[in-house]
């Protein structure tokens, strides 16, 4: 049983981020309702982990949301909704919530809270214990390994419009040095390349 992690993004140390990953969640519907009702105690970004590929995928969205918040250019209500929005390849806020936010059927849930969020009310609740009591599910480690396990790769490819076929195609002679590696290495490599394209798409969003 993990306690969730408190992370400090390089250069944004003033805004520590709490991240908890839960699997076998049974009360997603309840959590979603708290967001819809604007319950102030539930100021989190609740993500459905099936559309998350890796730790960096999440952190890139968090970085962008905090940075945009510092610069007073949020497109959505607050830094937490902005995290969900930042993951999306386009500017449709409702769609970003359908794709990346918690849904009634969410099984693996990623909860994120930006502490000392700029322009946001201070919450007295400790996110680790509050989440522990309000999310019905098992907390697991926030890691690439666990995120890979819950990721729905075909769906992620579709959302970011990645042509899956092209990736394994000839890499020219540079692939020669990799020919000795086994399938595990290549799968990891492909995931890394996918992450790189996704982060690029997210960085360009809104341009």
């Amino acid at each position, binding site marked *: 049983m993990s306690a969730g992690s408190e992370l400090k993004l390089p250069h944004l140390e003033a805004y520590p981020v709490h991240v908890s990953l839960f699997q076998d969640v049974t009360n997603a519907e309840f959590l979603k309702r708290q967001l819809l009702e604007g319950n102030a105690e539930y100021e989190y970004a609740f993500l459905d982990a099936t559309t998350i590929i890796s730790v960096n995928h999440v952190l890139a969205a968090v970085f962008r949301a905090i940075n945009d918040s510092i610069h007073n250019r949020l497109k959505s209500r607050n830094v937490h909704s902005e995290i969900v929005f930042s993951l999306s390849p386009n500017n449709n806020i409702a769609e970003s919530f359908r794709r990346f936010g918690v849904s009634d059927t969410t099984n693996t849930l990623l909860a994120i809270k930006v502490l000392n969020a700029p322009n946001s009310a201070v919450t007295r609740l400790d996110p680790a214990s509050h989440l522990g009591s309000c999310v019905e599910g098992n907390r697991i480690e926030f890691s690439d390994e666990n995120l890979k396990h819950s990721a729905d790769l075909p769906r992620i490819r579709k959302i970011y419009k990645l042509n899956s076929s*092209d990736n394994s195609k000839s890499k020219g002679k540079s692939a020669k040095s990799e020919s000795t590696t086994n399938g595990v290495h290549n799968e990891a490599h492909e995931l890394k390349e996918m992450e790189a394209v996704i982060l690029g798409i997210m960085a360009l969003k809104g*341009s």
Partner: protein
Amino acid sequence: MAQSTTHTLPPPFNSSSTTPKPPLITQGAEALLYKTTYLTPSTPIALKHRPKKSYRHPTLDTRLTKARILAEARVLVKCKREGVVVPAVLGADWEEGWLACEWIEGKTIRAALDGYLKRDVGEEADLRGEGVRGLMGRIGVVLAKLHGIGVVHGDLTTSNLMVRQLEREGDGLESLSLGENREKGLEGEVVIIDFGLATQSVQDEDRAVDLYVLERAFGSTHPQAEGLFEEVLRVYGESYKGAKVVLRRLEDVRLRGRKKSMIG
């Protein structure tokens, strides 16, 4: 230069209390390149900052900075999508004028050739060594791939091509000769960097000029190695459909130089 060297980083890269101050790696006419970390303390990045130019009108400055950051980022993402080996884009802020790219660990082709020529070749240039020829061939493949997806680099030099340092030290699989070449820094994936002047184009002329600029760069940084460039072109010519036409065009470009004649 008498100019003060206290460069100011854009926020949030200037405000950090626990991340060390990013060192300046290099500087071009328009941008400053720093090394720092991003997203996690163990992820190094190249941070390209285009500072405000006080001699430009603020509105124009903002627009140019934004256009240039985005042009570079779009080309990099396009390359990454199509499997051309370039640094990944990890983040950007066109209002502050920064672009965060994956850090490529390795040497520039320039440094790799310097080392090779100094150590192994000496006065009598023996450029038939397997390692160098292989490296030249890999450059040819990468350039063909770049041009093949409709991107022209715009500033190909031996410093804008890198050989990525191989990971997985000592997995016991590589042959002895590969081990030797690794030592010389000739083995490893070729990565194209600095897309600040890149454009999207499928014109033979643009592609040929790209090759011509690199050819001249080879000639000026490594006069003994000029013959090596033939190998780049040979492999380039075999690597995609339009390549042969581009090579023919290159012969015209050689005769007249990079600029098309504007007379008449």
